[in-house]
């Protein structure tokens, strides 16, 4: 286990370094210097040259890359030339709302998908299973923003249950004050996630139900309730751990689309707005953080899986 962990960690560090390099090169090629942003569209070439020189943007790319990595190690994500403030403070300001949205919808979707998938596996081909599978198929093929627009149409415009606007508060605590309005963004994210999670959960449940130990449990006279609670649920929940570890990019993408749709002042919207002017320290910081979290998520999922299932041996 220790050997495995060390090797996995080494690979993870290599991958993270690769991610930093690829992201840096990508943005460096697309937008080599923010001089125009700072000096304005009518800046003289001489002024741009001088500014580039003063700020180190005329150095070769590996030199700039080394500086960037050096700053990263000091926890410095660079300067947002568009919003004229450090990226770190920008991110800490916007993160709480996005994190809340993502975590709330993730927890909710697990709470729904886990029992739903197991129910579908147990009652396979029943009316409930078939309707749930069909619904999952529809929502699985539906982009998050269409789900969001559908929810707005039905619950805000037709039924008038909620306001079609979300609170425009800058902060999480402010937004929580009118929690009702955060409901639709969360539901939109949850519906999409449940659609893909429950499909996995159903097949995991079916796999477990076909195992010999379930037959043994039944043969020794355990009631259905005990077979399901002691043998089925525990074993069938394991794949969910891996799935959660892998689902981060999906969650981030959904989060971005939902924040854009409902105009929520979080990281996703910040990213979309930063695209317009290649505010590339912001773009790079968000891409990096997501990628690093993905790597960590995969690692943690693998470790959790071993801890929860003694049959899995990592070598």
């Amino acid at each position: 286990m220790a050997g495995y962990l060390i090797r996995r960690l080494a690979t993870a560090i290599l991958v993270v370094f690769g991610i930093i390099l690829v992201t840096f090169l990508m943005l460096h090629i697309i937008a080599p210097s923010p001089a125009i942003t700072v000096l304005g569209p009518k800046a003289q070439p001489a002024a741009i040259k001088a500014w580039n020189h003063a700020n180190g943007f005329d150095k070769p790319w590996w030199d700039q890359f080394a500086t960037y990595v050096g700053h990263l190690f000091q926890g410095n994500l660079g300067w947002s030339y568009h919003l004229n403030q450090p990226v770190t403070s920008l991110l800490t300001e916007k993160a709480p709302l996005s994190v809340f949205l993502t975590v709330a919808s993730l927890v909710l979707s697990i709470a729904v998908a886990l029992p739903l998938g197991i129910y579908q596996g147990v009652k396979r081909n029943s009316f409930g299973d078939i309707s749930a599978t069909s619904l999952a198929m529809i929502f699985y093929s539906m982009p998050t923003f269409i789900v969001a627009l559908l929810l707005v149409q039905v619950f805000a415009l037709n039924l008038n249950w909620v306001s079609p606007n979300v609170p425009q508060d800058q902060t999480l605590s402010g937004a929580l004050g009118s929690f009702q309005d955060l409901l639709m963004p969360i539901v939109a994210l949850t519906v999409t996630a449940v659609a893909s999670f429950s499909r996995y959960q159903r097949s995991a449940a079916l796999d477990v139900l076909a195992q010999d130990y379930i037959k043994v449990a039944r043969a020794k006279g355990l009631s259905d309730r005990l077979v399901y609670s002691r043998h089925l649920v525990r074993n069938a929940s394991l794949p969910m751990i891996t799935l959660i570890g892998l689902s981060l990019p999906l969650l981030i993408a959904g989060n971005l689309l939902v924040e854009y749709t409902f105009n929520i002042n979080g990281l996703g919207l910040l990213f979309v707005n930063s695209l317009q002017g290649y505010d590339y320290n912001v773009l790079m910081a968000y891409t990096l953080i997501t990628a690093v979290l993905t790597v960590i998520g995969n690692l943690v999922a693998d470790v959790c899986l071993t801890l929860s299932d003694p049959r899995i041996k990592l070598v």
Partner: protein
Amino acid sequence: MSAIIESPASPEPAAAPVADAGDLQATTSAWKLTLREFLKNKMAVAGVAILVFFVLFCWLGPVFYHSNQETTDLLNTDGAPGPGHPLGTDSNGFDIIGRIMLGGQTSLWIGFAAAVIATVIGTLWGAVAGLLGGLVDATLMRVVDILLALPFLLVVLIISQRYGANTWGLIIILGVFSWLVPARLIRGEVLTLKMRDFVSAARVMGGTNSRLIFRHLIPNAMGTVIVNITFQIADAILALAALGYLNFGVRYPNTDWGSQLGDAQSNLSNGYWWEVFPVGIALVLVVMAFNFIGDGLRDAVDVRLRKR
């Protein structure tokens, strides 16, 4: 978006192959078996039907249903469904049905072309890594690991901001960033295939690596490749829709389904539902059709492999 998470393995074993196990006609080729198995799957056949409908609708539709898609009609913007415009008009006065046909051409073509590019790159990458093994394999697959950890939508957005906004730009961007899953799949397939006797035989007869890959490994992995391509098309259409929705799709006078949704999004609260939902339904139906076809193909290919 499901490019990141592979579609779940079909939970139920495809219709038991026992029924015609005794039916061993020498003429039944593997592909015929696959086709026969595929046709038994009602959802998959429905998927093909939906797809054929939309292809005809988008490409042949404009021949029969004429609408002005070149010049804006500012006197008839946001018109409700009615005579002359069965599904109303959008905020530029374009007829919605004609708009969906035009946008469908772009969305379907970009989705298809991007999926083909991704599959070609992924298949070659995976086949080379799997066949050569060792250091080459390790290096190639680390590259895949790194790119796979990058958030797809964010990267594609960054690049589209600069190089997107036209059909080929978007095809290349989407294609070049979604070959990772096929690369892993094909590598796995090649790892088992290369141990088989026919590959060893080809090798001792002096077959070069490229001959092994193109004449033996890839043809035998074709089932996986084709199954993958259908899911890849669905994902590419979804990704393009997200880009268009965020205003990074193709530019006027061309249009795609995502851009139409993005333009119409803010009009929803004005009650202009016809600008959002018809195109939304078209998008969801097409993606669903590809998913059905993919599921059906996978089951059919599985059956073929089991029978062999």
